[in-house]
């Protein structure tokens, strides 16, 4: 595929890995923020190409992983209602709430469907006028315009049987929380390329300055990631702390204005709880008052529903880079991809699942 294959080229990857090796003089910890980046790193074994000085910390950028237990429980309560057709991205179906997951509710007769896009859920609402069609709107800033578009269109069409359960999160406040932690281990960030495609790079400038941390907006293919790492390592070695853009083919400093306008129209900034991390002020989106009748939590009166996380799950520390998955006492024992305690073990981008699936046999780890 054009614009994919050339960024997976082995020769280019090795050249970049060599350049990183020549640049680095001391240990650095880089956090890739986005779950999609984590997925590429494990899928292509990129950590094997890096010199031992560079370690990667998998950040909290997987929407499936950070959706709080209470919201999953709300989703389960809504999906269980007989009049509801509950639509979700595929990877949300196996995320455990406090007692079970969406698949379990489905096995008892709930109408739960996997869709590719919120617009597919909207189409379903048109097709099924006598059903309540609910979309589980999880995601970062990248997914917000698609969800906003679906809701705005539902209002235009007067489609009253469509609503969304919102669990939208924003990246910059999470980075601020990680940087403010007294145990901070992160020396530089690879910021999430597709989030910045929508929002631009400007909101990262004050973060980089305040905490003196390099932030490199980075794409998702192996060559991109290695180039992002090279740019971050170069900044660290040279004592710089700037916002740089590795993903110049897609990301503009101002982001995508029509997409931002859509988000503005439908959503407002709200406080959010992140699974494993806790509450972060202004770290999410919620529906504006004008769109509140598309809020599934209100429509089905589940706002008070919600349980707590397994006390054995330490995914919060993992998401902040303070604990390696295999150092968690539950890893691989009480907690496996078949029976996950926390969402980092569920999603294929979750740091714990990634380690479990790709790095379980020690001999593979040897360089």
């Amino acid at each position, binding site marked *: *595929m054009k614009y*994919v294959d050339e960024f*997976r080229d*082995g020769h280019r*990857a*090795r050249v970049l890995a060599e350049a990183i090796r020549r640049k680095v003089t001391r240990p650095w910890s880089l956090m890739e923020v*986005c*779950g*999609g980046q984590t*997925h590429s790193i*494990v*899928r*292509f*074994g*990129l950590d*094997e*190409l890096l010199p031992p000085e560079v370690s990667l910390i998998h950040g909290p*950028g*997987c*929407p*499936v992983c950070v959706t709080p237990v209470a919201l999953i429980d709300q989703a389960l309560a809504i999906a269980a209602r007989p009049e509801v057709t509950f*639509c979700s*991205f*595929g*990877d949300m*179906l*196996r995320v455990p709430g406090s007692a079970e997951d969406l*698949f*379990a509710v*489905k*096995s*008892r007769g709930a109408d739960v*469907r*996997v*869709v*590719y896009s919120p617009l*597919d859920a909207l189409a*379903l609402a048109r097709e099924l006028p006598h059903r309540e069609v609910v979309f589980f709107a*999880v*995601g970062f800033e990248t*997914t917000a315009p698609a969800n906003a578009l679906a809701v705005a269109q539902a209002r235009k069409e007067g489609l009253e049987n469509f609503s969304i359960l919102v669990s939208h999160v924003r990246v910059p406040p999470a980075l601020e929380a990680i940087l403010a932690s007294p145990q901070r281990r992160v020396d530089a960030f690879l910021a999430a390329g597709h989030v910045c495609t929508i929002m631009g790079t400007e909101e990262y400038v004050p973060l980089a300055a305040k905490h003196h941390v390099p932030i490199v907006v980075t794409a998702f293919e*192996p060559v991109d990631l290695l180039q992002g790492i090279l740019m971050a390592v170069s900044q660290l070695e040279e004592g710089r702390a700037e916002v740089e853009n590795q993903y110049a083919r897609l990301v503009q400093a101002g982001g995508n204005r029509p997409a931002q306008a859509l988000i503005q129209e439908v959503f407002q900034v709200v406080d959010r709880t992140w699974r494993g991390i806790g509450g972060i002020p202004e770290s999410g989106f919620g529906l504006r008052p004008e769109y509140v009748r598309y809020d599934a939590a209100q429509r089905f009166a589940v706002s008070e529903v919600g349980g707590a996380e397994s006390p054995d799950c330490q995914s919060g520390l993992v998401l902040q880079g303070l604990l390696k998955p*295999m150092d968690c006492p539950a890893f*691989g024992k009480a907690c*496996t*991809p*078949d*029976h996950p305690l926390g969402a980092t073990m569920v*999603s*294929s*981008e979750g740091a714990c699942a990634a380690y*479990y*699936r*790709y*790095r*379980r*046999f*020690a*001999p*593979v780890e040897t360089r």
Partner: protein
Amino acid sequence: MSPDPFALSCPRPLRHDTVQLAHGGGGRLMKDLIEKVFLPALGTDPQGLHDSAVLEAGGARLAFTTDGFVVHPRRFPGGDLGELAVYGTVNDLAMAGARPLALSAAFILEEGLPFEELTGLVRSLRAAADRCGVRVVTGDTKVVDRGKGDGIFITTTGVGLVPPGVEVHPRRVAPGDAVLVSGDLGRHGIAVMSVREGLAFETPIASDCGPVHHLAAALLEDGLDIHCLRDPTRGGLASVLNEIASAAGVAIEAREEAVPVDEAVAAACEILGLDPLYVACEGRLVAFLPAAQADRALTLLRAHPEGIGATVIGRVLDGPAGRVTLRTSLGTTRLLDLLSGEQLPRIC
């Protein structure tokens, strides 16, 4: 850390109280279901599991297998439920090295199923049987109340004859074996997904749904020392490699660049966030045989239109037992694990 703290054989309690969809997904939960419910009650040696059982009867060796078919939608680009019900069972017989002899077919029909659809599916079932040179010699029909079935379920059972000297079984897979596939992977899974509500997309891909018994026969009749054959259906190539590595107590290494995946299948997988190595085929086989015989096997397979894309994708190593790795296009290595259930489209 110890070399192998979380071996695949590690027993896990079955923690679900009811059957979940993932128990049928061809992954780890299905393995659990078989090992914790069926094997203890029905008493077969788990190391002995293969696509067909081989029974001695009156001096002959009979391969015996059964399979239920529930695909949705029932018609998909390149095939339908009727032919799938024949090829699935014929291929399972062939994977034991058997020449298919005869099939049974049992139909569970939901009241209200249009006769036109039923007739069409039965016709294509017959055409598939003719293509494979087998007859459907016995059958059964049940009709269930509306809402108690999904239109139609078909179960076929097959018997076949294993020629003298043929010994095709996972336990024969040994270090030094080459791993071959008969063609490109993932067509069936992608063809079915392309017409599924909520995911639909346009693709030139048709299912590879078809028989492979003649490919297996070509390898065996030439006298090659075929150690094992498998058809990579649910769970795809990665799941087959995991099953064989566990059963034979070996490690397997596949090379990403050698694994044939059509451009359109690869593109659909990118869009949906799927790994083609876990996507189902319905007309491919995976063969394990001594590396020295691999070239001859490729020549034989490529002589058939269905085997034209045959290629060597990996090799069998000493151990650790049960480990399957992929040498990536970047020269790095990653684990290819058994998934819990079916792969789900991702947003990340």
